[in-house]
């Protein structure tokens, strides 16, 4: 399981020598700090962690940690993370990326990630814009947003990542923001500790192509803690109600945590392996399967 502490680690133990390429003021710096803290709180040594991402500014994040990182191709962090977890269920597997990476090109993988319920935490740095390719419309951009690919304003409704995940049946759905660093670290830690697939949406502003200073202030004004609202995180329907506010209110905290987590995919795989290995031919004799008596 993900959460067993083996020795004492400090957040700095997870910080690599690479210098982030992010623009000064980018929200992703804060997310990185939150991840360091969460990992230190959990205490798994870096070499037992596999941290996968796709492509985008945000997807550079694994390289800034001392874990085994995999900065893969656009939209595909989740399949790769699943392969890693299936190959070695003992690893702590994290996936991360941007909203474009996760909900646009990679959107088809989300439902299946949830269905398989592998013990993987997925962190999306949702800046509602494409950062790396310099400011195009993203699937979470609000309707009417003017960008270099939507000069006259976008015509599409944004996707609602929180509602998607809840509707797909994810066992852990939360939202955080680097403006509340301590809260974010706690949420990421809880996501990692959740035995099963866990999703954290982080409102991480892009200061270069996304929000002006004014808007970031506005974002702060929208902030509202779910805990303070008295939300019961074991109530999935209530969580869905609150998730409807995505884009209008910035609810921070755990929307839903399945109080009775079902067995993970890894548990099921292990059970199947144990059951079936009892009648395995030695692998050298595998061709005996083709002898017709």
């Amino acid at each position, binding site marked *: 399981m993900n959460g067993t502490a083996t020795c004492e680690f400090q957040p700095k133990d997870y910080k690599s020598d*690479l210098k982030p390429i992010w623009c000064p003021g980018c929200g992703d710096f804060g997310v990185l700090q939150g991840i360091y803290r969460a990992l230190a709180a959990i205490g798994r*040594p*870096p*070499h*037992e*962690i*596999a941290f*996968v991402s796709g*492509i985008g500014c945000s997807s*550079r994040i*694994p*390289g800034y940690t*001392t*874990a*085994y*990182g*995999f*900065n*893969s*191709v656009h939209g*595909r962090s*989740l*399949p*790769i*993370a*699943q*392969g*890693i*977890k*299936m*190959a*070695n269920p*003992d*690893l702590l597997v994290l996936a991360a990326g941007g909203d474009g990476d996760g909900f646009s090109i990679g959107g*088809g*993988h989300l*439902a*299946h990630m949830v269905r398989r319920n592998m013990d993987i935490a997925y962190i999306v740095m949702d800046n509602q814009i494409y950062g790396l390719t310099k400011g195009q419309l993203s699937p979470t951009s609000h309707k009417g947003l003017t960008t270099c690919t939507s000069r006259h304003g976008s015509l599409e409704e944004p996707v609602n990542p929180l509602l998607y995940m809840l509707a797909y049946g994810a066992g852990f759905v939360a939202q955080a923001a680097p403006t509340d660093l301590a809260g974010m670290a706690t949420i990421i830690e809880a996501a990692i500790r959740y035995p099963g697939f866990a999703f954290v949406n982080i409102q991480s502003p892009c200061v270069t192509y996304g929000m002006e200073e004014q808007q970031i202030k506005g974002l702060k004004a929208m902030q509202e803690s779910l805990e303070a609202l008295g939300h019961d995180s074991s109530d999935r329907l209530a969580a869905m109600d609150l998730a409807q506010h995505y884009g209008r209110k910035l609810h921070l905290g755990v929307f839903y945590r399945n109080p009775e987590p079902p067995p993970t995919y890894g548990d099921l*795989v292990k059970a*199947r*392996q144990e059951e*079936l*290995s009892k*009648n*395995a031919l030695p*692998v*050298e*004799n*595998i*061709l005996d*399967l*083709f*002898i*017709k008596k």
Partner: protein
Amino acid sequence: MSDQSPAHNLVFGMAGSGGDGIVSAGDSLLQAAAAEGYHGVMTKSFGSQIRGGESSCRVRISTDPILNPGGNLDVAVALNWEDFLKFGAELPVSGTTVVIYEAATLIPPDRIPLVGVVPRQVIPVPIAQMAKDTAGTERAKNTVVLGLIAGWFGIGAVAVMKGIRKKLAKKGEELVEANQRAFDAGRAFAMANPLKVNMNIVPSETKGAVKLITDGNDMCAAAAIFAGCRFFGGYPITPSTEIMQFFTDHVWKYGGSVLQAEDEIAGIGAAVGASFAGVKAMTATSGPGLSLKTEMMGLATIAELPLVIVDVQRGGPSTGLPTKNEQADLFAAVFSAHGDVIRPVLAPTCVADTFRITVEAFNIAEFYQTPVIILSDQEISQRKETLDPIDTRQFEVIDRLEPSAIDLKDYKRFAPTENFISPISHPGMLGGTYLASGIEHTESGAPTNSGTVHARMNEKRTRKFEPLKDRKDLFEVLGNPDAPLAMVAWGSVAGVCREALQMAQEEGLNVKLMVPYLLYPVAEGAYRDFFASVRKGLIIEQTHLAQFHKLLRMHLDLPSGVRPLARSGANPFLPGEIVAALHNLLSELQRRHEGKLQPQE
């Protein structure tokens, strides 16, 4: 086959409607033949309807090892003519074919709808009626046919019936008895109406010897598990799906797992992830799936991760001919990637060598830290062959080079080494952490956009394959090594060419055949040696564009008399057709030299 002496080799072709049990009859025939010690190959072919359409099978049985399903039929069984004729080119009837057909079609023997061919003998048999009379149901038609075959061609009546009994045992003794009666009726009919010429097959000398029966897909999957593959990620697509099915049946037993992903991209993505995690991994697909997987193949190339990708070719482009054979994914396998990429491509030629080639694919993938494509095809993947037992212990299994304790002191994942291959760590290994990436990286794995580093890394990733081209065991040369006349063929077509070579040699041609198992990188040296003696030759392949011919010409100068014998799928090449083309070449050669250059024996 001479007319009076018994045969060493018989080719059966049968066709009927979906419910006629044609394929099941073919299976029984092949199994009985194996039990009697014969070698056999069976292919099946279906119409495009999912259920109830026409289906056919072709079973070739021989006292000697065979590598293809043969040419013209010796025996044609038509349960109805409409369905039979849909397989015109796959089931070619000639003047030496005995045609057996359902008498209820009410077509007189001299009016059967075979345009321009007069078969050796044509026999109407009331198959449906016999099935009804003996078993009480027309469903036993296939058993009647098996009885006829046993009676006329001497294929062990006991073995056939034993197989049928086993197949039906679960369904109750009553059904077994009914089928026994249908079988006996077929056999009695054959005994009472002997053929004009004896077509009994010679008894095999290896009766009772253990034989395996399997197809290329199952063989590939079994070989992968033997080679240490413990993860499969894929998405169903004809004709590759059986590979995933085999994994889901068996890989768990060996501590592995399998993922039926949401699409091809996720399938190969999971395999890339598993490989990164240190486990041997595979994915399998067919043309359209290969198109989807290309971005991930580039990723595995630049991240230097071992991975085996099976592409079971079918007719393309796009959805093309899903159930029929072609070799036209060659360019896609070799080239479909952006950037400078060398990706080894291997091709088996028959079910038996699929084992060795699959193990090789894993060894190459692990040793060179690279994706490797196994270019199989519909013909090999879905045809069944009888095989002599394979001693798996003779195959070496190679694992990737892991960093030593010293390497791990100051570990650099992509460290420059003499052979360009760097030790590879995996998550869980203390001291080995690094960043794998699709982005260009320095020796340590740090992202870079330095052109100098990129050039150096490109060199590392391509030069590491040089030794692979020297692997003599990935090429086979048959026939006279100094022959002026030559054939080159790969994949299932190579199996046909092996037989064409034999036929041509029996006809006195001085000819040789090269069968490459390694298609890419092109081993210039091996071909140069082969073509040194060659004046005329054929590159034989099932593509419209003569892809292999073009690939070779990209890499070396071929003698001017070497040309492609290339055509689209799906109809298989026939050995006789190839021999005819060789005769043409030879006469050109002789004309040009006005008799000066005679083939030397």
